[in-house]
Every structure is written in C-alpha cells, then in structure tokens.
C-alpha cells in the first residue's frame, strides 16, 4: 500500500523564546496568504535568516512545510530549502551576471531542470509587468531601477516554483507608484502556484 503524500496543515511555524517565554510566535496555514508583523528589526532578521537557511538557533523552533528543521540532515535540509522561496534584500542579485544569468543561475548550477522552460517562464513573468523581457534579460543589475531589481528577484523566485514564498518588507525602497506594481506579485505567484503559501513579513507600522 502506498502512503498518500498529505499536504501539511501548517506551511510554517516559528517561535522564539526569551527568559522561558515566547517572544515571537507565528504560524501560517498551507495554501493561503498571511501577513506577519514581527516586533522589531532584529526579530525579523533572525526569522528571515532561519527560513533562508532552514536552520534555527537553540531558542528558536522552526517548522517549514511540516518538517521540523532542527534535526534535518544536510541533504534533507537542501531539499526542503529548494521548496521555499524568500524575496528579501538579504539575497541580492549577483552584480557581474546579467538578468537572465541571475534568474537561471540556481537551475544552471544544479543542472536541473532544463533552461528552456525557465527562459519561457521568466519571459512570461517579466512581460506580465509591462517590461520588454528581451531588453531586461540582457541588462546588468546595476543598470536596473529599484522596481526592476525587485521584479528580477521575484522572477528568480517564481521560476524555482516554491511551495512556500516569503516576501520580506516588499515595499521598502520603492515609491508609491511601484508599491502598486509589486502588489501584483501576489496574484502572479498564486496564478502559477495555486496550492502555494505566501507570507508577507513586515515590521509594525510607525505609531502603531
């Protein structure tokens, strides 16, 4: 009898203790969109680092896609990490590679999947935001504006088809016109990953 691969109820569960009490405790159910506000910049940095590395400190608990990361073996950790995409300023574009090379780098490095479908997916994603994909793909990161950079980072995330996507402070460094454009990232992600989970991570609004 073959075991059915059940989708975990929680896509993410994270908590951090201080003096024996939960200082931060967040969770996100699978196949949905969540907004998480962490108390301060340090808490946000530690959360994003934990998700990026699929690894947590002694005072932290992290479960990603139903797996507790604390006792994962390196190969399992790498496999889990590939199912998670994080859009954050902590993972910038590589400055000496053009946009296409940046988008295709993870796949080209690991040798799978073939680059043809990735190129097509990247063109579609870039075209959906009213840009000329061919021109954009040939440019270097230093030639891009803030929104274009964000779009390329998003496209790099999108072509890796993550089951869980984490958007860290998406609107930071963008003006109000670009805010409206990055808001469409969510629809674009869910259009491609209908069963995916999307988590926005932000700090509390000033004055709140």
């Amino acid at each position, binding site marked *: 009898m073959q075991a059915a691969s059940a989708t975990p109820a929680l896509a993410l569960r994270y908590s951090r203790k201080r003096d024996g009490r939960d200082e931060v405790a967040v969770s996100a159910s699978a196949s949905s969109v969540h907004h998480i506000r962490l108390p301060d910049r340090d808490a946000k940095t530690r959360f994003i680092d934990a998700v*990026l*590395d699929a690894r947590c400190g002694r005072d932290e608990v992290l479960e990603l896609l139903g797996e507790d990361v604390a006792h994962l073996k390196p190969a399992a950790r*790498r496999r889990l*990490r*590939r199912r998670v995409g*994080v859009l954050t300023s*902590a*993972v*910038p*574009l*590589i*400055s*000496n590679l053009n946009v296409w*090379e940046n988008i*295709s*780098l*993870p796949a*080209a*490095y*690991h*040798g799978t999947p073939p*680059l043809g479908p990735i190129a097509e997916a990247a063109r579609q994603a870039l075209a959906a935001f009213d840009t000329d994909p061919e021109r954009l793909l040939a440019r270097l990161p230093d030639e891009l504006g803030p929104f274009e950079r964000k779009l390329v980072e998003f496209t790099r995330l999108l072509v890796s088809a993550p089951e869980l996507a984490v958007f860290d402070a998406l609107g930071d460094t963008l003006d109000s016109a670009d805010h409206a454009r990055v808001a469409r990232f969510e629809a674009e992600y869910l259009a491609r990953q209908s069963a995916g989970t999307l988590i926005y991570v932000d700090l509390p609004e000033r004055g709140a």
Partner: protein
Amino acid sequence: MIRILREFEGGVRLFFHVAMRAGALRRPAMRESFLRQVYFTGVTAATGVVLRASAVGALIIAFTINVLDADVELAVKILLWVVLREVGPLAAALVVILRTGTAVASELAMMRISGQTEALRHLGIDPYDYLVIPRVIGVMLATAALTLYIQFLAVLGGMVLSPFMIQATFDELSNRFFELVTPVDLYYSIIKSLLFGFAIMNVCCYHGLNPPGLTPNAVPQAVTRAVTQSAMVVLVLNAVFAYLVFGVLFFGLVTARV
C-alpha cells in the same frame, strides 16, 4: 603572526577544496564561468604582450652578444635558458597578477562586502565551488597558454629583430635554436606556469573572499594583499622549482647541452 598562519591555513583549505571539487566544473553555470575566465585571462591579455615579448627576445640576444661578446650559439642558448625556462613563465605570471589577480580579488571582495556570496549560499550554491573553482582552473590553463604565447613571441621577436642590432642572420639564429631546444624545455615551463596560475588564483581568491573588513575601504586592502602575496608566492615557487630541477634532485636531467 596569527594572521599569516590563518592566511596560510586558508590557502591550504582552498587548495584542497579545488583539488577535491574540480569535477563540479561539469555544471553548466560553472563551465560558463570557467570559459569567461579563460577568455579574460588568456585571450584579452594576449594582444597586450606582443610588443613587449618580442622586445624581450631581441634585447636578450643583442645584450648577450654586445656586452658579453658572445657568439651566436651562446646568445641562442641564453635565449633558450632565460626566455623559455624563466622569463616566459614569469612574464605570464606578472601579466596574470596585474590583470586577472587584481580583477578577481576586487570582484570577490566587492561580492563579499555587498552580501552576494551569502546570497549564493542562500540560493543553494556553494560560493567556493561557483566562484573559486572556475577561476583557479581557468587561470591555470590560461597562464600556461599565455606562457607559450609569450615564449613564441619572444623567441620569434629575438630572431627577427636581432639581425638589425648584431652581426647574425635570422637563419643562423633559428638553426641554432632548433638544434638546442628540447621538449623538456617546454614541459618545464608549462608545468611551472600551471603552478603559477594555481598559486596566483589561490591567493587572490582567498583575499577576495576574506577581505580585512566588510566596508568598501577593505577592497583596495584585499587587492594589495592579493597582489603582493601572489607575487611573493610566484617568486618562491620559481626558486623552489629551479632548485628542484636544476639542483640536486634532477641535476643534469634538463640542462641544455653546452
């Protein structure tokens, strides 16, 4: 002292990393990076050395005959010993340090400072695999190719230009040269240049990936350390290599017939 030991240990670790993981070069992204490195180090540097390499050969022949009052045979022997065995690999190493070494050290230091090496790690890419292996192997091969090119230009330049400065014809010089040259002369210089390329990139990649700080001010410091240390390593390697080959261990094996 601790810094020197740490740098030495870092260099040794990098050496073993490249040796153990060279097979990763089969990956498309790394092959691309490798070819770029070969092109930058070997091909784009080639045009700049034509005049200098030709002049070196001519100067050695003219200097030997005029100052030492040597005959054509001795002049060609010195051309062989000096250009093929010593100046060729050293000149190529100098070009590689000045062009590629500085470029690689500053590029990697900038990547480290701006968080791009960490970004690679987050993308599941080992920065040492992706950044170091293609550069080290690419520069090794390019240094060997550049050495052969410089040797060819210096010998040819020496033979073509010398008749304008001394009483010897091109035929005389070339006949003597082909009588005296042996394949061992080429093997010697190729092995040496491969070692030089490896050492230069090892040092430059280490300092690029380990700048003294994480601010833009650290970039020139990393480049200075990379250049001075790789020049020193090349000179030490050259001395050790010459001692091993011409010294006690293989004495007589590759010395030119006098």
